[in-house]
């Protein structure tokens, strides 16, 4: 009897399609956005403008409104909010595992679920704004 083959058959019968490539893909895409787009977003929105180094009119209401609720605004939400959220979820999930906190399943649902929920919230906010 060929033991190796029977083992392989058992394995393929039990094998379910993994969802890891999806999370890995979102993590990588979010990682690129976190590295390339997020630094500039933090620098201007959260540091230079609040500190008054860049003019206070830069984010006045009408200007901010027309900037956010537009096609570039949607691209901004996708690249600076949604994808980095999934990147963060992946790292928090693995960080919890490294610190031996929670359980695999619970951490996965909580982190990716949280990222999905906040992403939907951002997209719903965008949709309300353009309607």
């Amino acid at each position, binding site marked *: 009897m060929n033991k190796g083959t029977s083992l392989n058959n058992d394995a393929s019968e039990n094998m379910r399609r993994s969802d890891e490539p999806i999370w890995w893909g979102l993590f990588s895409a979010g*990682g690129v956005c976190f590295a390339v787009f997020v*630094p*500039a*977003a933090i620098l201007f929105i959260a*540091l230079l403008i609040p500190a008054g180094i860049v003019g206070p009119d830069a984010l006045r209401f009408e200007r901010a409104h027309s900037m956010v609720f537009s096609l570039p605004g949607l691209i901004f939400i996708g690249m600076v909010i949604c994808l980095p*959220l999934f990147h963060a979820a992946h790292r928090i999930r693995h960080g919890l595992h490294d610190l031996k906190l929670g359980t695999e399943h619970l951490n996965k649902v909580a982190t990716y679920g949280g990222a999905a929920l906040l992403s939907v919230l*951002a997209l719903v*906010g965008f949709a309300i*704004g353009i309607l």
Partner: protein
Amino acid sequence: MAKRTSYFPELKRNWWLKHPYFKKYMAREATVLPLVFFLLCLLAGLYSLLQGAESWQGWLTFMQSPLVIAVNALAFIASLFHAWTFFQLFPRVMPLRAGGRTLPPNLMVLGQWFGVVVVMVLAAWIFMRGL
């Protein structure tokens, strides 16, 4: 079935404190914590923008509070640290070949930093035009 007798050392929760390399690894995992704070700030900004000019002004004032600026400054540093580690992966994961030769990894890392600078210049133009 024979009882498994091999030795499995138990991993303690503070394992990563025992070597500088593991500390750096955990620091990189932790870069997403201030990132999540910044993303929640952006989401709050999106919804205050939907609620009108007064609410938006309240959000701008919130972004000016010293503690918020401090955490976002940490997020900015974290994003650059993440970028530094992330850019080193690209030449390893996807070595680019030009003219039959592999591009030097340093050149690829430099190219990605150039991308960060271009995005910052673009952000400066977006936020400062017409001021």
